[in-house]
Each structure stands twice: as structure tokens, then as C-alpha cells.
């Protein structure tokens, strides 16, 4: 626990140091990221110890705040999230030190590092806190510091708009959390998490708590109807901040939901169904919207929605398993979902960092402006390729392992003999949607990688593109290695999962012993074996091919142009045209608007085509709702006169009314 406190110490020290050193750019360049890295190193050690040994360590200091106590604990569940948070944050900080070189003359970097340190500290506190007041305090600091990081380039109107969207969304979510914790506190008698363990899942309170947790934490995590802030905020933020926010900060929402689930026993089946439905909707719609985007950071943001959907599918399968008393389904659902949290953190931050490198080097976020960057930025391109293969869930990289566990959990449900078809139907829905999501993800990332990095460059943005500096390369290298290693070491990582999911599955796996886990471990050993075999066979074939080719003459020519004499780079397929068949098929959900000015006459001068896909929920749900609310609330404008004495009168009146109501 001392090391955890040291971590907080480093982070806060770094935060305030960088605030005061704002003028000394040279020191700041080092001090800001170094404090994050030191803090993360200090924090990650106890987390690793806890998760490997399966032990929990706690610390409780009484506090002056009413109902609050400084009570923190590192158990395997918290440790899993802590490791992801600290690992990704430290790498993003190193990347940020290189990325921010562009902004050193125009921006106050000190404030940026202040909030960055604060964000990391508050995320760590969120997953460690064991008291509702402390939790909400950390939650709020996390939301605010990330808000300030998002509006880093606040001189742009689009960034300000994105910031406000995020600010409002996250606070609406927090409001639900307040109510939820108050309900739990009333039931348990105290706001310490330890007292929440009494709540029975069948009661009304538990159902309300569950629903509010879905809304409150779902807003942070990006469940589909509540996701609208993600595609706004992620493109607006600097890339290393997007990597932290998309990679780990939204996962605190998942953590919160899972932590609440550990308090509630005997979940009714409809809880699992809700999560499965949310997972299907977020997963499929998320990847569809991603496919329709032209801005690559927006595309990645929608992919976070998709992956949160996959995580929700895993948790839903797990909950169904608990409800229907199917240990295999329960364990693999939760384990797959939670492992996907870590895997997604790794490959999504890798993607955001390499996208940041492209943005840094070319200055454009439009996919259709780029092209051919593989030759100019081979390192970044490889990083993006590894991230793409991993996010598509393809073997032998890490994305496959967690999706595979969810698949196997679903199959356990399909094959279970039970009175109702519940588990089977849940399993079938999950398998079918995961397959569809997988196919669409491949479409989306072949598009992103292929159009950005391959072919010929489509505009002058790429002319001066160059490989990025060392501070930006190293984090990408580390994350690439992590993607490969976690893909190959699935069976080793598996060993910690029983400890992590222990609190969630205790009712169904109580009696079953080591044999239970061992049977699944042997499956993952097989996966490891086949992933290795795949790599070995690929290496072997590459070697054989190079032997074969070394004896041959290799000529170079232009790409086959069908006999056309003047092919230009403009004739290449673009991101929009690549995605068009699929977006047309799903037009009902996407509502892509197109503007075409067709070529006209015998010698057409100009023609243009553009398409735009706005967020369905933003346009059709939230905008009308908020507009209606705004026009209704504007009626109350008349009590706002701008006269101070009247305002004081309002305050006094309100106090008197409250006083009378209490004494009545």
C-alpha cells in the first residue's frame, strides 16, 4: 500500500510542479512525463503483486468529510484496471512529451501536464476507492481534468463544442451515480463499499440501482444510446490524451458497473439480457458508424463504442451464466469481457498514438487526403497495422484471445441443457453479432490502414510527411510488443482471471474446483499453440519465398492501369467509395447524406461528390429533446432580472421553505 501512496505522491507532485514550472519549458518537457512514469511504476508493482497472488490489501484512514473515509483497497479486480490505467498512461505521457513539441510556443504546456497528472491520479483513485464519497470525488476530478485536456485547443469552435458535449454528458451520468450511491447507502447504512454487500438482487432497489448504474457508468463507458460524447471528444483532444481517454478512462465506467454487480447478488436474467442487447447495439452500430467516417480519429472513437459493446456482450453472457446457473458461461463471459478491457486498452491506445503520429506529421485527419504513408512513415505504419489486426480480433494477436473467451462462453450457453432456451438464445445472439462485428471491423480497418498508408498520396498533406521522433516511437514499440505477447501468452494471462472474476462468479463456481478452470486453461493452451504455429508457419514461408525469389529477376513497373495512359493518384479508391456498398446496405441505421453534383454536358468542367454521416442519436434523439427542454426552460427566464436583491430574496425564501418543511 505504501507504493500506491507513493504513486499518488509522485503524480500530485508532478501536477503541481508542472503548474509552477510553466515558464521553464526545458524542465517541464522532462518533469511532466517523468512524474507520470514514476507514479505509474510505483503504482503498477503492488497491482501486479495483487493480481498474481490473488490477494487484496487495504488501507483506511478516517476523514473529516461527512460519511466519507479515505478507504482504498487493491484487490485483483481493481488491480486489473490499475495495470491497464498505469501502463497506458505512462506510455501516453512519453508519447505526449514528443507530441507536444508542436505546441510549445503557442500553448501553456504546464497546465496540460497538471491536468494529465491529475487525470492519472484520479483514475487510479476511482478504481481503488472503497467509499462512495471518495469514489465520487475522484470520479469528478477525473471528469473535470479530462474535460480540460479535451479543450486543449480551445481556440477552435469545434473543440469547444466537443468539450461542452462531453461536459454535459458526463455530468448527467454522474447525477445518476449520486442517486445510485444514495440508494445503496440507505440500504446498507453507510457509504463504505463494505456495507453494500448486503443488497439482494431481486428487490426493487437493486433493480433501480442496476439501471442507474447502466446509465451513469454507461455514459462514461460509451454504451450506445449514451455514447454521443465519444465521437466528439476523442477527435478534439490531443492524440495521447485520446489514447488515455479511449484506452482506459472510458473503462472506469466498465469498472464501476462491474463493482456494482459485485454488491448485488442473485441477478435476475433480464439484467443479462439488457447488457447483451446494449452490447449488440453498441457493437454493430458502433462499427457501422465507424465505417462511414472520413476522419480517422472519429473512426477510432466509434470503434471504442464497438469494443465497449463487445465488453458488454461478455459481461452480459457472464450475468446470464450467473442467472441460469451455468458456471462456464458465467466465468468465460466475465473473464473475456474483463480481459477485453485490457486488450482494448493496449491496441486502441496503439492505434490512437499512431494516428497521432500521422496527424503530427501531415496535419490532416481526413482519411481521403492521405495515402502512401507506408513509404514515408514505415514505423508508424507498422504500428497501425499491428493495432488494426489486433482490433479486428484476428489471431495471433491479443484481440483474438478475449473475443475467443466470449465465444467459448457463448457456446457453453448454447450447449447447456436447460428448461428454457434462455442461455442458448443469448449465446446464439452473441456469436452471430460477434461474427458480424468481426467482419465489419475487418472492412473498417482495411479501409483505414489501406487508404491512409498504402497506395499513392492523395493530396499535398503527405508531401512533407516524415517519421516521428524517438519519444513517440518507443511507446508504439512497447504497445506493439504487448499486442503480440498478450496474444501468445493467453494461457498465462488466463491464470489470473479466476481471481479477478472471483467476486462476480462466487455464487455459481463456489464448489467447482481446479478442474473447472483447468479445462478452460487447456483450451487456451491450444490457442497459444496454434497462434505460435501460425507465426512459425508464416516465418517459414517467408523464408522459403525469399530463398525462391533470390534466384529470380524482379522487375518494377507501374500498377496495371487497364491500358489507360495517364493514371493519377486521384483515380484511387477512396475511403468513402470503399465503404459505400456496406453503408448503403445499412442505410436505414446510418442515414448518410450525400451531395452530388454530377458531370454535365459534353465537356464537364467540375463534378463533386461528398457524403456525411451524422450520429443518428445525436440528430434524432438528443437534439430534439434538448431543444424542447431548452424552449420549455426558457419560460423561467423571467425570474432572472439581474437584480442582486431579488436573487438574495430567492435564496432566503428557499431557505425558509426548507426550514418550515423540516419542522412541520
Amino acid at each position, binding site marked *: 500500500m505504501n507504493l500506491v501512496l507513493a504513486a499518488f505522491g509522485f503524480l500530485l507532485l508532478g501536477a503541481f510542479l508542472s503548474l509552477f514550472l510553466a515558464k521553464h519549458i526545458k524542465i517541464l518537457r522532462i518533469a511532466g512525463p517523468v512524474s507520470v512514469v514514476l507514479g505509474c511504476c510505483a503504482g503498477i508493482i503492488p497491482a501486479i503483486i495483487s493480481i498474481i497472488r490473488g490477494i487484496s490489501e487495504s488501507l483506511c484512514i478516517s476523514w473529516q468529510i461527512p460519511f466519507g473515509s479515505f478507504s482504498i483497497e487493491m484487490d485483483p479486480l481493481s488491480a486489473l484496471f490499475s495495470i491497464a490505467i498505469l501502463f497506458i498512461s505512462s506510455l501516453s505521457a512519453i508519447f505526449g512529451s514528443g507530441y507536444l513539441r508542436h505546441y510549445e510556443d503557442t500553448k501553456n504546456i504546464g497546465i496540460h501536464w497538471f491536468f494529465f497528472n491529475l487525470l492519472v491520479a484520479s483514475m487510479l483513485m476511482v478504481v481503488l476507492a472503497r467509499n462512495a464519497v471518495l469514489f465520487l470525488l475522484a470520479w469528478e476530478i477525473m471528469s473535470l481534468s479530462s474535460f480540460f485536456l479535451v479543450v486543449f485547443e480551445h481556440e477552435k469552435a469545434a473543440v469547444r463544442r466537443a468539450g461542452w458535449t462531453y461536459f454535459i454528458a458526463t455530468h448527467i451520468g454522474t447525477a445518476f451515480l449520486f442517486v445510485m450511491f444514495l440508494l445503496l447507502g440507505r440500504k446498507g447504512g453507510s457509504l463504505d463499499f463494505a456495507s453494500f454487500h448486503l443488497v439482494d438482487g431481486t428487490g426493487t432497489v437493486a433493480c433501480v440501482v442496476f439501471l442507474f448504474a447502466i446509465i451513469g457508468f454507461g455514459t462514461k463507458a460509451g454504451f450506445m444510446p449514451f455514447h454521443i460524447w465519444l465521437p466528439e471528444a476523442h477527435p478534439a483532444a490531443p492524440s495521447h490524451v485520446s489514447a488515455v481517454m479511449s484506452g482506459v478512462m472510458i473503462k472506469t465506467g466498465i469498472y464501476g458497473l462491474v463493482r456494482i454487480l459485485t454488491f448485488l447478488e442473485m441477478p435476475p436474467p433480464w439484467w443479462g439480457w439488457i447488457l447483451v442487447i446494449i452490447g449488440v447495439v453498441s457493437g454493430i452500430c458502433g462499427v457501422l458508424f465507424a465505417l462511414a467516417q472520413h476522419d480517422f480519429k472519429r473512426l477510432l472513437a466509434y470503434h471504442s463504442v464497438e469494443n465497449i459493446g463487445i465488453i458488454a456482450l461478455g459481461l452480459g453472457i457472464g450475468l446470464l451464466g450467473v442467472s441460469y446457473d451455468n458456471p462456464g458461461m458465467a466465468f468465460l463471459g466475465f473473464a473475456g469481457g474483463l480481459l477485453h478491457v485490457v486488450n482494448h486498452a493496449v491496441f486502441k491506445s496503439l492505434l490512437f498514438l499512431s494516428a497521432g503520429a500521422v496527424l503530427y506529421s501531415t496535419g490532416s485527419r481526413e482519411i481521403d487526403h492521405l495515402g502512401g504513408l507506408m513509404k514515408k512513415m514505415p514505423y508508424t505504419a507498422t504500428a497501425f*497495422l499491428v493495432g*488494426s*489486426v489486433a482490433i*479486428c*480480433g*484476428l*489471431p495471433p494477436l491479443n484481440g*483474438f484471445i478475449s473475443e*475467443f473467451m466470449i*465465444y*467459448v462462453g457463448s*457456446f457453453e450457453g*448454447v*450447449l447447456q*441443457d436447460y428448461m428454457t432456451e434462455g442461455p*442458448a438464445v443469448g*449465446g*446464439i445472439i452473441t*456469436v*452471430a453479432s460477434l*461474427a*458480424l462485428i*468481426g*467482419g*465489419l471491423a*475487418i*472492412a473498417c*480497418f482495411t479501409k483505414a490502414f*489501406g487508404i491512409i498508408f*498504402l*497506395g*499513392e498520396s492523395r493530396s499535398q498533406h503527405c508531401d512533407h510527411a516524415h517519421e516521428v521522433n524517438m519519444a513517440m516511437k518507443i511507446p508504439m514499440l512497447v504497445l506493439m510488443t504487448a499486442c503480440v505477447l498478450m496474444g501468445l501468452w493467453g494461457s498465462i494471462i488466463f491464470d489470473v482471471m479466476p481471481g479477478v472474476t472471483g467476486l462476480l462468479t462466487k455464487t455459481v463456481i463456489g464448489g467447482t474446483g481446479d478442474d473447472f478452470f483447468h479445462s478452460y486453461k487447456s*483450451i487456451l493452451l491450444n*490457442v497459444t499453440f*496454434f497462434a505460435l*504455429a*501460425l507465426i512459425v508457419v*508464416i516465418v517459414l*514461408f517467408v523464408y522459403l*519465398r525469399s530463398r*525462391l*525469389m533470390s534466384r*529470380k*529477376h*524482379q522487375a*518494377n*513497373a*507501374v*500498377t*496495371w492501369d*487497364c491500358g489507360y495512359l495517364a493514371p493519377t*493518384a486521384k*483515380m*484511387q*479508391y477512396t475511403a468513402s*467509395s*470503399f*465503404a*459505400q456498398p*456496406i453503408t448503403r446496405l445499412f442505410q436505414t441505421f446510418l442515414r448518410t447524406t450525400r451531395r452530388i453534383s454530377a458531370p454535365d454536358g459534353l465537356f464537364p468542367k467540375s463534378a463533386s461528390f461528398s457524403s456525411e454521416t451524422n450520429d443518428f442519436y445525436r440528430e434524432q434523439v438528443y437534439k430534439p429533446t434538448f431543444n424542447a427542454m431548452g424552449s420549455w426552460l426558457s419560460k423561467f427566464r423571467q425570474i432572472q432580472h439581474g437584480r442582486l436583491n431579488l436573487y438574495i430574496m430567492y435564496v432566503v425564501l428557499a431557505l425558509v421553505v426548507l426550514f418550515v418543511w423540516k419542522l412541520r
Partner: protein
Amino acid sequence: MDISRYMAVPLGLIMAPFLLGVINRTKAFFAGRDGSPLLQAYFDIWKLLKKDAVYSRTTTWIFRMAPVIGLAAVIIAMTLVPVAGSSLFTFRGDLIFFAYCFGLMRFFTVVAALDTGSSFEGMGASREVHFSTLAEPALLLGLIALSKLAGSFSLSGMFGGLSGSDWMGAGPAIALVAIAIFIVFLAENSRIPVDDPNTHLELTMIHEVMILDYSGPDLGIVLYAASLKLWVLGALIVNIFVCAAGLTGAVGLAVFAGGMFLLAVIVGIVESMMARLSLLKVPQFLIGAGSMAVLALILVLRFVK
């Protein structure tokens, strides 16, 4: 048991290009021609491997590595596919690994097509991801129906668990699965009515246009990998029938080989009799396959306990 287990992979590796020959011979027969030799695909591959290569200046190492990665993925998938009830390797959930190996192959084929910067190849790549997105759920739904029926979710357990009595009890469901997988098989291998392997116009091709810029040994590898894919996915269909008949061992192996031959003839007949669907109709065709798989699943869930 053991013979079919150890022979599964060598048989596929050796026999796969033969299927292409059978298909072409069948088509030639229906067109009233003599047709190319049955072993033509072997000659093609051998000749291509001996040739020199030409590369586009636009391409990068992705373009050169993609065929090799595809070949590796399909061979790994092949070790999991049972022949007459037993496969070289098997583990629970291997059907997911199997399906995702093809995902890996597709990812690199598509990316390599985009690597050339050609608009035709981009077009082919776009169609490929479009259609396979719809084919994948159909394949997995069909496999779930079989696994529920056989009570196992490894490929060899699932086919090995089928028996003649399943055909009596759930015949329509199994037939539906076979049809659904057959449609997926046609789509994934770019056969008529989804794609025409013999078309001569870049604008209308799917798989052929993606590999337009390959030459020499790389084209040979692509051809061989494609024939292996035809074999592996075809093996799923043939297994449904061979395993349900309860044939194993050497007899099963022989019947299986005969079944593959028959399948190739059927593909040839389909290609001779049908026209290619318009590209707008292909999604409906694939969604139709998915619907049949769903129907099969419902039948299995509801009426076979």
C-alpha cells in the same frame, strides 16, 4: 480412425488444385468443349513458381507478404478440419480459430489489393469485405446448429457427433445447414453466382481483380492458397454427409475424396446453369443463407432436445 486423421492434411495439400480441374472440366462438358486437362491447375502453379516477377512501384512489403500469410493461415485452418470424423488437431472452440484464420487471410488479401493503389483493385477489395461480412455470420450460425445437434463445439466433435439417426430426427435442419454452408462456400471462393472466376472485365470481378497485379511465384502462391480454401470449406459440406453416414477410417477417407469430387462436379454444374447475380442481389443471397441457418437453428433448438 488414425488413417483419416493423419491423411487429412496431406490429402488436402495434394488434391486441392485437382478440384479446380474438375470444376473446369465439368463446365467444359456442359459447354460442349473438351476443356483443359484435369491437372491444369498444377501445371499453372508449377509454371508460375518458375517465372520471374514484376512488381508495381507503388507496392510495399505488404503486397509481397500477403500471399504467404494467406497460405499459412489456410494451412493452419486445414489442420483443424476433420476428414471422415477426425482431424489432425482438435480442441474445444477450434471452429472459432478456424473461422478467424480466414479472417486473417482476407485482411491481408484486401490490404494487399489496396497496396497497389489501383482503382480496380480497390473496387474488388471493397466488394470482398462487403460480401464476406455477410457470409461470416451465416457460416457461424450454421456451425452452431451443427454443434448444438452433436453436443460439441470442436469441428471434429461436431461432425463426429453426427449420425444417421440425426438425419432421421433433424433431416431438414441438417439439409438447411448444408445449403447455407454451400452458399457461403460459393461466396467465399468467388464462384458463380457471386463472382465469376473467368470474367474478363476488371470492373466486374471480385477476387480476380484483387490479385490483378500479382505475377510469377506470388501469383502461384495465391492460386494455391485459393484452391486450398476451396478444399477446406468444401470439406465442411462433404463432412456433413460422410460423417452422418458413420463412415470412418480408410473407407471414410475414400468416400470423402469421392464426395469432394462430387462437390466439384456440382459446383461445375451450378456454374454452367446459373448466371451471375447482379452485385446488388448478392447481399440478399448471403442474407438468405443466414436466414436458412437461423431457421435450422430454430428447428434444432425447438424440436431436437
